[in-house]
């Protein structure tokens, strides 16, 4: 069966699974649902008020009916009301999400722009000094947690240069791209640091594998130049595992954003989740988790498309 149709077919299935998991998880929280929904304020309610609230929210009904209602709500964009903000969850998320998305994309661009050339360079200088240097750096990079990178950046900026990096504020890119970039560049480097290291490593090993493949030997036997062998024959094939990695790593980037936004005090969706957890704003937690998972899935679907574009064996199916 065609790879792409299979991916497209399982997509809604996985989405459904994700929604069930999130819904059930939130209902597993100890204490009753009203407490879960209203947080600490639930303690102020009289039993009558509780009962009418339960009826109002439909939580006196069996769980699968509740799930059905919740799911129908999801489709109309109704993720519930955030207790902390007193506004619809979706509105709060959409306000915070652009920052996180931009942060993740920016760090991805940085990582790919650094990692791919470094990996290819290392592979073509196999066992030479450049290769060894790049491998050591990549190994160190992969072993450095983002919060260490972030703290070091802040330390260097503030203690060494006496310049405090911009924190706690965010200017959208359409308001002022330059200010936006100056606010996001350090967080993006922080977030993309380890990713760049893994891109380097995977590009290097993919390139090494491909360079020993038979068709590269064929290209050489035709009289293709070293540059043509690397970029025309080997590189497109080596890119395939890099693309796969990028899809998986995008999830780590979205997750890592929680930490990076915390360090640089950026008002993105990662901070929102953390705050929501500490405020026991469960509707918001539920919404954020669902929203991030959805984005991750969409990115992976795009990765599958890119995959098909790169590899005719997937695009056209096997014999």
């Amino acid at each position, binding site marked *: 069966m065609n790879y792409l149709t299979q991916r497209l077919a*399982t997509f809604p*299935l*996985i989405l459904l*699974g*994700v929604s069930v*998991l*999130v819904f059930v*998880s*939130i209902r*597993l*929280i100890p204490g009753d649902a009203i407490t879960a929904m209203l947080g600490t304020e639930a303690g102020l309610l009289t039993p009558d008020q509780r009962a009418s609230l339960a009826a109002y929210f439909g939580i006196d009904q069996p769980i699968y009916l509740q799930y059905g209602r919740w799911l129908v709500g999801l489709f109309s964009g109704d993720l519930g009301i955030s207790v902390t903000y007193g506004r619809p969850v979706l509105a709060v998320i959409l306000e915070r999400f652009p920052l996180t998305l931009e942060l993740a994309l920016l760090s991805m661009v940085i990582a790919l722009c650094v990692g791919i050339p470094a990996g290819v360079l290392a592979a073509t200088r196999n066992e030479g000094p450049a290769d060894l240097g790049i491998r050591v750096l990549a*190994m*160190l990079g*992969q*072993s*450095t*947690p*983002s*919060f*260490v990178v972030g*703290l*070091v950046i*802040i*330390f260097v900026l*503030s*203690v060494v240069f006496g310049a405090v990096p911009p924190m706690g504020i965010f200017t959208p890119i359409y308001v002022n791209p330059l200010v936006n970039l100056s606010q996001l560049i350090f967080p993006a480097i922080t977030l993309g640091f380890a990713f760049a290291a893994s891109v380097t490593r995977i590009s290097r090993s993919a390139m090494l594998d491909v360079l020993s493949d038979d068709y590269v030997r064929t290209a050489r036997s035709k009289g293709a130049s070293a540059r043509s062998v690397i970029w025309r024959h080997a590189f497109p094939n080596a890119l395939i595992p890099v693309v796969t990695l990028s899809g998986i790593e995008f*999830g*780590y*980037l*979205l*997750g*890592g954003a*929680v*930490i990076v936004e*915390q360090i640089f005090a950026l008002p993105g969706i990662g901070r929102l*989740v*953390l705050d929501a*957890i500490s405020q026991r704003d*469960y509707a918001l*937690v539920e919404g954020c*988790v669902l929203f*991030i*998972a959805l984005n*991750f*899935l969409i990115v992976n679907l795009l990765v599958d498309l890119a995959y098909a574009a790169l590899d005719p064996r997937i695009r056209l199916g096997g014999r």
Partner: protein
Amino acid sequence: MRILGAIARHPSGRIGAAIIAVYLLAAVLGAFGITPHDPLQQFRIDRLHAPSTTYWMGTDLLGRDATSRLMRGIGQSFVIAFASVAIATAAGTVIGLLAAWWGNLWDGILMRVMDVLLAFPAILLALLIIAIVGPGTFTSVAAIGIVYTPIFARVVRGPALSLKQRDFVDAARTFGSSQTFILTRHLLLNLVAPLTVQVTLALAWALLTEAGLSFLGLGTQPPSPSLGLMLSESRNLMERAPWLMLFPALVIMLGILGFNLTGDALRDILDPRTQGRAA
């Protein structure tokens, strides 16, 4: 053991194994209370003391000895990392193996469930679990274990599927060998090599995730010392007491590095492409 000798001969494996050995020693000493000072005792007069012969890595805002706290913290991190990876390995191997062996419908169901778990970025899934159960050592173990289970399931399923196609499995069928025999002797035994590599690398991720969670204040709870927490506490003091940031940062990094280096070495050593020649 042959494998330990091979690691000792591998250049980066040697460094990695040495780091892990030192950490294990520090963790054991820390667990038995053989530390320079009591990690919880507050030396009020010596608050924010710079590194010295008394306090090798300085003291924190409450006057607690950083060295002792780091040793205890390493133990804490290792316990969580090893326990969670053990859970993930066991669960992931069983799921991946059975998915590959049963195939068809069961393969589809099991792997789609794993896909659902993979749809959550690791930290986020951990946060969701912590939101439900509340933070603590046990929660961290469960959260990290669940997060890495699907990865192990995938790591096992791929090679298990190709092993299932190998002629020795068909041969076993012609003898009438039992399913259990085939699954353990023919599949699992041949999966030991890729699993060893994966376990070592997963330990590195687990350390990273644990440090991240406690950095966010959602892992090990104070006053128990933990690496991530020490680092996040150092934040506002970085100008006055940079050592409070430096040492935990180095300890976390080196620990992860140790497992990454060992994992890489193991991958080189156990690579099927070099297998026949090595032995």
